């Protein structure tokens, strides 16, 4: 593999600039998670007295923000193909690995910015105490890994399915299940067994579980599993992204 630092930076910079250039996208992508947190969190908190559901929900909602932005960033290769910019990248003397790397880092940067923003806003809403520094670092590492593997997965998918029309389909049949069939909304212990089994197979559950452990201290899988699974998925997703992107054409 040939990585070229300056070129990774170029690709990274493009992702970040596209992001900061469109303020509307930032605001709109925060709207949905906030709505979830306030409506869902507020409603359930009233239903279950004695359980701070909002605090429980917060890591799930932060993950949701990161997830949508990351997958979107990866899949946006479909649009680059549609609008022609992909040709510019593919004809440049830049290795495919470099492009993949730059895009992953760029996508993760924008997703992380939103995740952190959401986290801070969420803490204000829910009154969750600021975790200790070590935990904050742990959260950032986990969020980064989580985001990177989602961007990578998005790139792999966009390299294979090439039509813009499939995008909505992907969102409905991949992203939504990944989110809802995870530990994002409900404690795994209290789920019916079948749902718990499905959710335990979903890598997203581990990233959320890890963050939750670091924020409010309740853990299901244990941090070791949470980090292990997340790093493992990152390796697989990165390999898939480079493999499929190498094969993609205009």
């Amino acid at each position, binding site marked *: 593999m040939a990585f*070229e630092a300056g*070129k990774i930076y*170029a690709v990274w910079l493009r992702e970040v600039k596209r992001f900061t250039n469109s303020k509307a996208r930032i605001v709109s992508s925060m709207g949905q998670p906030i709505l979830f947190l306030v409506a869902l969190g507020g409603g359930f908190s009233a239903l279950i007295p004695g359980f701070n559901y909002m605090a429980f929900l917060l890591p799930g909602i932060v993950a949701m923000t990161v997830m949508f932005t990351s997958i979107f960033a990866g899949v946006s290769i479909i649009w680059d193909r549609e*609008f022609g910019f992909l*040709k*510019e990248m593919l004809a*440049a*003397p830049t290795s495919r690995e470099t492009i993949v790397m730059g895009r992953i880092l760029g996508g993760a940067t924008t997703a992380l910015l939103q995740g952190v923003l959401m986290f801070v806003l969420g803490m204000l809403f829910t009154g969750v105490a600021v975790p200790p520094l070590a935990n904050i670092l742990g959260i950032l590492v986990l969020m980064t890994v989580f985001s990177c593997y989602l961007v990578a997965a998005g790139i792999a998918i966009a390299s294979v399915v090439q039509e813009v029309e499939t995008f909505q389909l992907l969102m409905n049949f991949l992203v939504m299940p990944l989110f809802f069939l995870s530990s994002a909304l409900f404690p795994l212990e209290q789920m019916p067994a079948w749902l718990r089994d499905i959710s335990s197979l979903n890598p997203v559950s581990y990233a959320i579980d890890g963050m939750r452990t670091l924020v409010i201290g309740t853990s299901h899988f244990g941090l070791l599993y949470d980090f292990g699974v997340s790093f493992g998925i990152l390796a697989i997703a990165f390999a898939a992204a480079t493999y499929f992107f190498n094969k993609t054409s*205009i």
Partner: protein
Amino acid sequence: MITTSRLTKKFGKLAAVDSLSLDIPEGEVFGLLGPNGAGKTTTINLLITLLKPTSGSATVNGIDVVKHPAEVRKNIGVVFQEPSVDDLLSGKENLEMHAMLYSMPGELRRRRVEEVLELVELTDRKDDWVKTYSGGMRRRLELARGLMHHPKVLFLDEPTLGLDPQTRQHIWKYIARLAKEENMTVVLTTHYMEEADLLCSRIGIMDHGKIVALGTPKRLKHEVGGDVVVLKQEGFDRSCLKGLKFVKKVKVDGDEVFLTVEHAHENLQRLLSAVGRVRSVEVREASLNEVFLKYTGRKYREEEEGAEGGWAERTMNAEAQRD
């Protein structure tokens, strides 16, 4: 500098590039002409490694495009026919990104960005989003980007498509200078015959994925056999042309008569005396247009063949020979 050997690209059953063998020496500005769908863009995509050939091979700067695509990409620059700039970046950001992808050092990068922005007259719009550019301005940005890193081999797919005449002339001058000063090899496709004539040292006319004519613009024009005179006259009678040896070919289309005439300017007087009263007359000097139509104009070609087989043409030829 570029060679292709039986290069073929099939899309399903359609051979977009059909067993193409070409040889383009270093420093040449090679023009690839041909009707829509002839396979020009596909040929370029094969040479710039964006498409893999179905069969055959090609080298660019001596490097095999299938075996070492990454090496080939270090030697080339491309201006695509279709849009390929990033809408959500500014013009300048697009250029800077390009410079970084092509490893241009900082100092050179700044200089070239200014230089090409100047060339395409986008300096005062450089910080605006490309989204807000007009169609021609986007095209100019594409050109600026393709020209900024001075590759060994430059591919220009309809570079001046949609540009105003003034900009077009700037660009022609710049391309010609680049090619000469940097000894750059250029492959250019265009539908503007004037552009091809002005810039290209050699031209290949492509149709159905094959080269159907190849040569310098001068030689190709010479081969068409003269200028074309278009007359408008109702009830034109071919026999009036009897004895006029400088008339090489006749084609009638409604009330329009197309004559291929040697040295039309000198012979026009005699021609018109022979033909009699006409509604209008138009002289088209032998140009690449005629060359193009001769080799690829489907309608023109079929009718011409039909006419040659017709009795009127035969008798006239026979009579001309008797004279």
